[in-house]
């Protein structure tokens, strides 16, 4: 088999040959090839099977719009990627690619039976076919559809690659490095402005790389391109980003650019990230995205070997690959003639140029005649032949009256088509900039802008090299001026440019039964022209509905080659002008983007911040099991060898109740409130009264929202008359500080009080148990720990083990308790000293689970567990914490609303199960009568539930409608195994007289 590579042609690096495999077969290529160009050079046109009908498919385009040539690539273990477009994938030595969507092989595919059964798969077939019998949906139809759906195989193991991200700011961002983009960036760059230029391709140049006939400023297109690149390289103010796709245009000129860093390399450096997401904030943006060629819609337009004429020109001029020896051309636009001429000059025998237009410019016909190419104008295409590659095309004359004459068969080995060009308005459209319909060109063009952006070149409907350069230069200069620089657009002299025109078509006329024609509009989702007409017949009038019913434009290519053809057909079928039928919304990303690029650095250990306390490392070394609590990881329990969780918790609970436990409470939020109005500020924020709290004393405080519901709680100590040490819940720390700051700044700016977070300043060691004081007394200086001097709910400042401390006497266990605050860097050393000194009392480190059990035995609530944002202090049995004499506090007024005073509000109660060994499920619903009909009336739910080793039975807290008045009643808790009985009791299960706090 001879290669289709033409010696001396193209921009590939012939000094760098590579070998790659496709479906296991090894092929040669060159650096600079895409997989598509390299396969075509090896005469491989068949690269995949279509989504619905499993029809053989080839390469349609030469760019990122490719709907057909999707392949799987593997770069080693864990590095499999499905649905990569062969037209953008750069080949490298060792690349391994495979085709998709077929079984057992690409050439013989069982699924192709769908093609013969196509009548069943018309638009909306899912909705129609799988309706009966209804019971089949869950068990038969849906699993079957899901199994058949999807394109390519998902990766099965975690992605081993790393990804990067970077923020950037610039004066002018230019998207697209074709002639318009280059002209823009040269002007803006010369002004001295800070510029970023990005282009999705590996090489700058855009259409200049493929269309080689015209010259610029006396140079050939390629020579001018080289001089432009040299000039940019010499500008330190210009950052050039090839292989970088502008995926989205967001508010206030923020653009996301995805840069491919290593996918084109055979052996990337160790540790090199695969992609980088740039988040660029630009003062001015120039969009020079170019245009995308439209396919023509006719029966068999999807056969391998049928491709866009511009793509064939790219393969020839840019990659030195002839797509066929005997290509035929079918077109409604002059540009395909140039592709035919280029191929003819490259010694291909062009079978014919078939133009649907009755009249074509004389200079084109003359050139065709000179090259010996047969020309058929006013003809249509009605079919193609060839099983795995096109072998012939049927063409028919169309009379002035529209009558389609008899077919003529033209043998060919490639069929190049062009239906004209669609400006890429995607990014402009992301900004919600208005799109205007251009009737003459049958296209949408950027209208009024909403951001500081300009469109230039083909993407703005200004086709042709001279127009692109002129508009690009003007846009670049204007952008630089608007960014505050001096610039003036240069004029470019363009030689030998051929003026091009064309018309837009719907599906081409045919002499055969149009309802049987497989004339594809959306190649990736297998949507044909008749599907769109069927949708309209069935009542869909808006393009958004037609899109969803037919799935036109819904594949990974987002309809880049299909939307405008679909619209033309729909508009004809609806008999309304195209803008009235509408255009579907363009949404980011512009092309498929990896999840890795979005995640950037935030994966694995860096996925999210994991906050660790100063004592965390000790806990880890001592076998702690951890649990996440907001961003923190906290020691959950400390199992000894051979212990399960249940045994560990029971042992830890027992130690605290009988002797001494220690607990890392460093994660508690802490706020230092300082100023002459500190007590008054607390009076207004918390429900409790603070003015009379003595220096050196603490109080439990409850914080409400304006709605009267509990938001947070914590113990607050008065360190001096003007200084309070506030603690909050672990998860509520940032929220509470923000709420306080908000009130202070907006409601009470007159108060002389200031707030500072000290959460991380202090490591906090809770010592709980009857022996706590005995342990502390010899280790603490300058605080008298006697019962009289330092009773329950005291705070003092002194030293412990040589470190300064703020020592609290408080208890979240019901035992005598202290919380030792030391500056964070001393936390671990003090912990270790206390642990060592506590050995005489069998001191036992415990985690959050034991803390939860011990506090539940005492009926102490946890905000967020026992409350859910709908509980008032009274509901939570905290009515006592309300300062009734206070004129106001946040939420006070809401507490007197009639709703808040109803008897049947859900109230916090205790539950004791009839079977003491049953531990209820947290979240389980509660009913009064288990025999009522379904659905039962639920009156509350279990909020906390544990095995209490202290009591030798289970305990639970719950919220129950009118619960307090029901004390003593039996309620029922349906759980998966059976319905359990429980008795409503008070919330305090252990030591209700609080004797142990001072024992």
């Amino acid at each position, binding site marked *: 088999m001879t290669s289709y590579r033409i010696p001396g042609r193209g921009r590939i690096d012939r000094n760098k040959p590579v070998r790659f495999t496709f479906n296991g077969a090894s092929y040669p290529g060159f650096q600079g090839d895409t997989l598509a160009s390299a396969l075509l050079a090896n005469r491989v046109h068949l690269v995949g099977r279509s989504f619905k009908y499993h029809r053989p498919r080839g390469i349609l385009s030469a760019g990122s719009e490719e709907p057909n040539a999707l392949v799987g690539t593997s770069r080693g273990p864990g590095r499999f990627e499905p649905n990569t477009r062969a037209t953008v994938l750069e080949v490298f030595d060792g690349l391994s690619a495979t085709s998709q969507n077929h079984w057992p092989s690409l050439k013989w595919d069982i699924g192709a039976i769908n093609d013969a059964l196509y009548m069943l798969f018309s638009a909306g077939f899912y909705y129609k076919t799988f309706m009966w019998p209804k019971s089949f949906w869950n068990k038969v139809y849906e699993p079957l559809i899901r199994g058949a759906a999807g394109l390519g195989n998902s990766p099965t193991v975690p992605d081993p690659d790393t990804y990067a991200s*970077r923020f950037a700011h610039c004066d002018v961002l230019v998207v697209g490095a074709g002639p318009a983009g280059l002209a823009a960036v040269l002007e803006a760059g010369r002004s001295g402005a800070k510029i970023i230029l990005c282009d999705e391709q590996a090489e700058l140049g855009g259409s200049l790389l493929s269309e080689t006939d015209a010259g610029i400023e006396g140079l050939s297109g390629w020579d001018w391109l080289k001089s432009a690149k040299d000039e940019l390289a010499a500008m330190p103010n210009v950052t050039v980003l090839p292989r970088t796709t502008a995926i989205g245009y967001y508010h206030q000129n923020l653009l996301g650019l995805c840069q491919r860093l290593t996918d084109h390399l055979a052996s990337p450096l160790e540790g090199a990230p695969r992609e980088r997401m740039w988040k660029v*904030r630009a003062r001015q943006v120039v969009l020079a995205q170019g245009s995308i060629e439209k396919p023509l819609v006719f029966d068999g337009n999807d056969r391998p070997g049928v491709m866009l004429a511009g793509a064939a020109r790219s393969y020839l001029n840019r990659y030195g690959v002839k797509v066929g020896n005997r290509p035929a051309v079918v077109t409604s636009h002059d540009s395909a003639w140039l592709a035919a001429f280029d191929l003819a000059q490259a010694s291909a025998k062009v079978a014919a140029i078939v133009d649907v237009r009755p009249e074509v410019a004389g200079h084109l016909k003359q050139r065709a005649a000179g090259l010996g190419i047969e020309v058929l104008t006013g003809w249509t295409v009605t079919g193609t032949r060839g099983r795995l590659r096109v072998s012939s095309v049927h063409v028919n004359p169309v009379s002035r009256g529209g009558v389609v004459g008899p077919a003529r068969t033209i043998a060919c080995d490639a069929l190049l088509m062009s239906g004209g060009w669609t400006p890429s308005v995607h990014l402009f459209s992301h900004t919600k900039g208005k799109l205007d319909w251009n009737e003459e060109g049958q296209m949408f063009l950027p209208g009024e802008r909403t951001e500081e952006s300009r469109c230039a070149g083909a993407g703005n409907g200004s086709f042709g090299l001279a127009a692109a350069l002129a508009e690009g230069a003007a846009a670049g200069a204007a952008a630089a001026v608007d960014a505050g620089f001096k610039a003036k657009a240069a004029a470019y002299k363009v030689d030998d440019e051929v003026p091009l025109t064309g018309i837009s078509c719907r599906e081409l006329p045919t002499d055969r039964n149009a309802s049987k024609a497989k004339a594809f509009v959306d190649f990736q989702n297998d949507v044909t022209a008749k599907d769109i007409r069927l949708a309209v017949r069935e009542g869909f009038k808006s393009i958004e509905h037609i899109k969803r019913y037919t799935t036109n434009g819904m594949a990974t290519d987002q309809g880049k080659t299909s939307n405008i053809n679909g619209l033309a057909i729909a508009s004809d079928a609806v008999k309304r002008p195209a803008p009235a039928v509408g255009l579907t919304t363009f949404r980011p990303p512009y092309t498929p983007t990896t999840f890795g690029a979005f995640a950037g*650095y935030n994966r694995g*250990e860096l996925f999210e911040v994991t906050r*660790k306390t100063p004592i965390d490392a000790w806990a880890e070394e001592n076998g702690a099991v951890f649990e996440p609590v907001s961003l923190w990881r906290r020691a959950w329990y400390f199992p000894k060898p051979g212990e399960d969780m249940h045994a560990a918790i029971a042992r830890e609970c027992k130690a605290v109740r009988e002797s001494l436990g220690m607990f890392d409470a460093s994660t508690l939020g802490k706020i230092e409130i300082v100023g002459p109005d500190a007590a008054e500020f607390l009076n207004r924020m918390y429900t409790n009264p603070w003015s009379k709290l003595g220096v050196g004393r603490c109080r439990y405080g409850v914080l409400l929202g304006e709605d009267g519901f509990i938001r947070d709680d914590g113990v607050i100590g008065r360190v001096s008359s003007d200084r309070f040490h506030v603690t909050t819940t672990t998860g509520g720390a940032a929220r509470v500080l923000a709420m306080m700051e908000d009130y202070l700044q907006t409601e009470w700016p007159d108060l002389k009080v200031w707030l500072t977070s000290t959460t*991380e300043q202090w490591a906090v060691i809770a010592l709980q148990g009857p022996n706590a004081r005995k342990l502390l007394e010899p280790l603490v200086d300058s605080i008298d720990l006697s019962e009289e001097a330092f009773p329950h709910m005291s705070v003092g400042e002194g030293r412990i083990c040589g470190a300064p401390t703020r020592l609290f006497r408080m208890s979240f266990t019901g035992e005598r308790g202290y919380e030792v605050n030391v500056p964070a860097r001393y936390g671990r050393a003090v912990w270790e000293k206390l642990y060592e000194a506590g050995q005489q009392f069998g001191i036992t480190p415990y985690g959050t689970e034991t803390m939860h059990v011990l506090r539940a035995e005492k009926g102490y609530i946890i905000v967020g567990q026992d409350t859910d944002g709908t509980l008032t202090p009274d509901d939570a049995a905290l009515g006592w914490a309300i300062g009734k004499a206070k004129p106001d506090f946040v939420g006070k007024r809401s507490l007197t609303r009639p709703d808040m005073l109803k008897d049947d509000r859900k109230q916090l109660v205790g539950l004791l199960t009839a079977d003491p060994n049953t531990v209820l499920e947290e979240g389980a619903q509660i009913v009064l009568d288990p025999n009522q009909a379904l659905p039962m009336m639920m009156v509350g739910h279990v909020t906390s539930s544990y095995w209490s080793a202290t009591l030798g039975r289970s305990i639970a807290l719950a919220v129950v409608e009118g619960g307090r008045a029901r004390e003593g009643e039996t309620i029922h808790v349906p759980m998966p195994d059976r319905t359990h009985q429980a008795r409503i009791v008070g919330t305090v299960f252990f030591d209700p007289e609080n004797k142990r706090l001072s024992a």
Partner: protein
Amino acid sequence: MLHEHHPLVGREIAVREAAPLSIRAVADCARFSLRIDPARIVEASKAFGLSLPERIGDVTVSGDRLAVRLGPDEWYLTAPLAENQAIERDFAKLYATVPHSLVDVGHSEVGIEVEGTAALLALRSGIAFDIEAIPAGTGCRTIFNKAQIVLVREAENRFRIEVWRSFADHVWGILQAVSREIAIDI
């Protein structure tokens, strides 16, 4: 004396290739959050022995003492460790006539210095605003990839990050990932 545990102690990242970069955990210092009526900064400056910056974002330095104005009524102060108690005493004296809040946050924060021609590039991986535009000798509170930090541009190519200690590992991990890219120039 008790052993002090620092999250990042002794850790260092050094890149010596095309774009030199050095990232290191810096020695501890005394740190305070000062909140005070901006009308009274003359008195506060006297107490601290340094003219407190009058514009938000400005930094003033005198000897080993430094102040950054972070907000309308908020300054971040640093000083040598040994001066911790003296500073508290001086402000305590001021409190009688000029009420304010001085809170020791010396143990809350960890200092990281990022220095070299690639310093800006390293920081741009996680900071959304245009740090190239901020002049040397200024600072602000901002976000570095999910972590709140105070950033001071000490010199053209030297930045100091002050970050809460439990966020320090995260910030360090990001800087480490970025420095790999800088080392292999990708």
